[in-house]
């Protein structure tokens, strides 16, 4: 039996009556809305058959009276009450923040904002860099009081020791890949023996340090940003300041030092693991015995290559920790910011590492370390 809705030719034989029967609640709101839509303006809504009504039902009826000139009859006292409730609560509301301008104008203004923001971040980073240098100087002046041995050693463990597994595995596999790809190409010239040069020099000069930096940025740069960001949100950093502990000294400097010290060690370890991977590949596939491999490595890699790789490492470590801590300190407001800043920390750290690597490449070739 059709018990509700828009019915023609019923006992009133008036098509301008919308008769609701049963429950007029949110679960039937979509249907009710459509049915009222189909009714002519100035309809009468008969609520006498309604046994259950909620605010959504009341809202639909109220809206019809407001916009379509509908009349309500047969409403129970409870229904009247609900209608009054929603009438009082009727205020125009925006769901999303207003967006300014349209099309071209908005595009330009967004670009402008982006540029200004990028400028501010760069400025902020320089500012932070300066603050860190001052912090280092303070620690250097009075190391007995200011140097936090425990914090630094804990970070050594987290940044360095615990990264050994993944960096070792990654480097080992990269060594195999370089060896295999190099051998395929060099075989065409009958110069397979140069695979050793390839593995040795690219690893020591570039890849060992660069891949380690990328891994450390992903592992530790992100962790620095997330840790400091969360501490910022929970007001721990404010608490530190009020107690008189400088967050730069207590949080930033131990992280920086750990990254600066651990990067060269990890890079050297990564170089060894890559060479090991490449060496094993050469031994198995190219049948170059390990002794020959090592002997040839010694001949083809100039010692300056090792310096090139190892000099870059602490600089990369410094940049990664700087950007990670800086982004963490920028967190404000809600938890979403922590995620955003952590992402930024990793992206910017890797980007800066590659830029600095390029600068180093030019510098080292110009001083003749080719």
């Amino acid at each position, binding site marked *: 039996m059709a018990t509700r809705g828009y019915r023609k030719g019923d006992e009133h034989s008036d098509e301008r009556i919308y008769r609701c029967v049963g429950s007029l609640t949110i679960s039937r709101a979509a249907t009710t*809305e459509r049915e009222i839509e189909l009714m002519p303006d100035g309809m009468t809504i008969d609520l006498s058959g309604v046994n259950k009504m909620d605010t959504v039902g009341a809202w639909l009826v109220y809206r019809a009276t407001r916009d379509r000139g509908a009349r309500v009859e047969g409403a129970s006292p409870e229904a009247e009450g609900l209608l009054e409730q929603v009438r009082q*609560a*009727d205020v125009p*509301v925006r769901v999303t*923040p207003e967006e300014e301008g349209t099309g071209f104008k908005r595009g330009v203004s967004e670009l402008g904002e982006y540029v200004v923001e990028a400028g501010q971040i760069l400025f902020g980073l320089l500012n932070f860099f300066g603050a860190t240098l001052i912090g280092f100087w303070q620690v250097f002046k009075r190391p007995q009081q200011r140097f936090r041995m425990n914090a630094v050693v804990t970070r050594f463990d987290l940044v360095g020791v615990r990264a050994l597994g993944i960096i070792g595995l990654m480097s080992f596999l990269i060594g195999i890949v370089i060896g295999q790809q190099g051998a395929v190409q060099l075989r065409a010239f009958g110069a397979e023996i140069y695979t050793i040069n390839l593995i040795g020099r690219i690893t020591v000069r570039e890849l060992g340090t660069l891949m380690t930096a990328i891994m450390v940025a992903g592992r530790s740069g992100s962790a620095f940003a997330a840790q400091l960001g969360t501490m910022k949100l929970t007001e721990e950093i404010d608490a530190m300041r009020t107690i008189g502990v400088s967050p730069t000294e207590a949080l930033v400097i131990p992280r920086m030092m750990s990254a600066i010290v651990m990067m060269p060690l990890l890079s050297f370890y990564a170089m060894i693991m890559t060479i090991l991977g490449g060496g094993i590949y050469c031994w198995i596939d190219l049948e170059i015995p390990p002794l020959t491999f090592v002997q040839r490595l010694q001949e083809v890699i100039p010692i300056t290559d090792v310096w090139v790789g190892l000099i870059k490492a602490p600089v990369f470590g410094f940049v990664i920790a700087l950007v990670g801590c800086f982004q963490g300190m920028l967190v404000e407001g*809600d938890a979403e910011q922590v995620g955003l800043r952590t992402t930024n920390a990793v992206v910017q750290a890797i980007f800066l590492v590659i830029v600095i690597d390029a600068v180093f490449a030019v510098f080292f070739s110009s001083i003749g370390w080719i």
Partner: protein
Amino acid sequence: MSDTSPILPEGAKVVICIRGLRNAFGEEGEQQQVIHDKLDLDVKRGEILGVVGGSGTGKSVLMRSIIGLQTPEDGEIEVLGENMIGREEDEAKNIRRRWGILFQNGALFSTLTVAENVEVPLREYFHLSPTLMDEIAGYKIAMAGLPADAAPKFPSELSGGMVKRAGLARALALDPELLFLDEPTAGLDPIAAQNFDELILSLRDKLDLTVFLITHDLDTLYAICDRVAVLADKKVVAVGTIEQLLALDHPWIQEYFNGPRGRAAAAA
């Protein structure tokens, strides 16, 4: 059976019925921390039940057990006539639709605006036209006592009191029969807290709600609670009006209501 028993007499209209609830954390043995043991409680339809107890007596754990966020070790929980223990997710969904929850810190989704927060439950359960959904969000926000310009704001842009009101608007989104409030006035200034009390009272009357209210706020207890349940000794030791509770000689109850703060609230 005294009239402050947590179990209501036969025939009362009961919305929440808890029998023999046991909650404990940790491995069984001496280390185990028992929060609730043989806890009984009935909540009457249409009442505002205040739940009080010292810190660590498991007020929030009790609420989490009722709404299914915490699986109790033992006991029965019936909400709106449905057994809550060991429910399949699909069945539980139908009951969840019928209650609204205001968490202590609002628990608003931080990536959504206030209005979008209110729309989340609507979207989840119903296929409504976008206009209707926006309008529903609009009047719910107004009912929760927020100004219209709060709707397009993000939770991080709101003050503490507004966050609670926005959380309440979301809790009211589906026209619930049952409202759970976890310390709704904590962290609000006295004026905001009083306004919030009045709001809850008026919403209860207008929308025919049953309210389960966890609070530490003595003023709230005096102002709006029909009955107060006292959690102590791992169970609900008594439920009743404040006058009835004062007549008991339980040490915690006496200290709670007859301490300087309790007397100040009673005088107000």
